């Protein structure tokens, strides 16, 4: 119980600091980094619902991200509608797509499932980049900036708090998955599906629900990201790189832990920002640098802290407690 509380204390500290930063710092670069850390963390939290808590490792979650991004961008660019409506439409579409992926998770195991999710996201990429009449094809869509909350035309400070609210909400969803009946049942499914079934747990239905919920949450982030960045490029939003990023933040932070996605996000986002500043001259060679970061980070984590950064924090805490007992 005490350990659980201290685990939450870490999260509380993180969110408190994140809330305080925009009050103290007005530097745009700094705020931008904070917003991205919160958003990428939320995306990994959304991924974690399927990949961590339900054990359905997807490498195609950019599909849902792209659906969310495109829904809102197209709606506001073409029809002048509020991106909030676009967010809702994106969620509905992602629930539909999530049901398909969830169904696949009951047909295919492990690597086969992961591969099928990649294929799914690449199909969407082809549609988005070729369907010129509707999506503007590979040119992408600029998202019009209209000031106001209803149109999500916000300043950096407002964006920081919006991203924080999203992060807190997603954190709460994960905590629910750790404490609730359905959360424990999902843990059973993740550990051993046959055993879970023997105990009266409808494993297939729970997996579909988890994957679908994960898809809808990812879509919400996609919408917000597109509105924040102001441009939707099909080759970026549906990329495999992005899917890997969602998974990697969560794995590095600690698979199936509630704060893990943001711990991973801090590390990866900070590294990326640093490298971008350092190598800003090298336009052409830059694209590959992500893969280098991901690769190195993943190797280090798997080799030295397979339980992720959240696990390291727990270990340090335990050592500290013992030393001061």
């Amino acid at each position: 119980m005490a350990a659980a509380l201290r685990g939450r204390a870490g999260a509380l500290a993180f969110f408190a600091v994140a809330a305080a930063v925009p009050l103290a710092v007005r530097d745009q670069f700094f705020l931008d980094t904070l917003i991205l850390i919160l958003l990428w963390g939320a995306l990994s939290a959304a991924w974690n619902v399927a990949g961590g808590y339900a054990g359905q490792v997807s490498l195609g979650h950019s599909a849902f991200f792209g659906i969310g991004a495109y829904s809102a961008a197209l709606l506001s660019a073409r029809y002048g509608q509020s991106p909030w409506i676009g967010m809702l439409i994106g969620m509905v579409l992602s629930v539909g797509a999530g049901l398909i992926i969830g169904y696949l998770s009951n047909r295919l195991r492990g690597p086969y499932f992961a591969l099928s999710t990649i294929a799914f996201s690449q199909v969407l990429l082809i549609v988005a980049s070729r369907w010129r009449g509707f999506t503007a094809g590979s040119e992408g869509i600029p998202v019009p900036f209209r000031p106001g909350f209803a149109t999500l035309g916000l300043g950096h400070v407002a964006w920081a708090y919006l991203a924080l609210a999203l992060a807190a909400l997603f954190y709460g969803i994960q905590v629910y998955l750790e404490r609730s009946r359905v959360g424990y049942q999902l843990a059973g499914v993740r550990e051993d599906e046959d055993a879970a079934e023997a105990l009266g747990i409808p494993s297939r239905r729970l997996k579909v629900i988890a994957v679908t919920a994960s898809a809808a949450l990812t879509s919400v982030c996609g919408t917000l990201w597109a509105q924040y960045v102001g441009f939707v490029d099909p080759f970026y939003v549906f990329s495999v790189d992005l899917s890997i990023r969602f998974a990697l933040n969560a794995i590095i932070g600690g698979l199936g832990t509630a704060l893990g996605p943001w711990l991973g996000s801090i590390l990866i986002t900070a590294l990326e920002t640093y490298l971008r500043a350092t190598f800003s001259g090298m336009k052409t060679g830059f694209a590959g640098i992500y893969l280098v970061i991901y690769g190195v980070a993943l190797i280090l984590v798997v080799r030295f802290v397979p339980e992720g950064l959240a696990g390291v924090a727990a270990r340090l805490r335990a050592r500290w407690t013992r030393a001061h007992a």
Partner: protein
Amino acid sequence: MLTLERVSKHFGGLTAVREVSLEVRAGDLLGIIGPNGAGKTTLFNVIAGYYRPDGGRVLLDGRDVAGQPPHAICRLGLTRTFQIVKPFGNLSVGDNVMIGALNRLRSVRAARVEAERVIETCGLTAQAGAPAKTLPVGLRKRLEVARALATRPRLLLLDEVMAGLNPAELAGIIELIRRLHADGLTLIVIEHIMAAMMRLAQRIVVLHHGETIAEGTPAEITRDRRVVDAYLGEEFVLAQA
């Protein structure tokens, strides 16, 4: 409570279970024995919904449940354990059992209380906080039973929960099964340990090459010529005498 009518299950050309019929009434403690590969586990898999039978009917309280998924059958009150134990390895023993208790309970808190009770009944209290994967084999078998019990079954299927136990553990689990039966639970028990079976079961079914070759009281079974030839062997009969 449970009726099997000429149930069959094939794997390719192999017939693992051939037209097995049996009847289990409320309060029974039925034993199933037979040599390795006789089809005992396959029969459990068919009853519990893991395999759809290729022929015959599985009636639970008069309702044909063939083709229903295992979780639905569990909710109807039939729970099985696995011969090759399947603990939720990374979860604590307490959480393992609590997840079983969630079958009948909506609240996690209530399920915890229930789990504590079951864990005590099964003598796992000292290990309640440990990750299930750290348990030695004997205790894993007991966890398997505890988790199944927590679902509050009316009919419990135990698949070789005594295999690999030392004499003290064996005595403990036999005592536990006796107590559960005395409290009104209906059980089907697969076991190789004949001595234990003799003491526990009211009735024994003998499977051989997927077929029922004998059925009767333990005393009748040990006198049955075919059972002795197929399974028990002369030494056993001599030892009994």
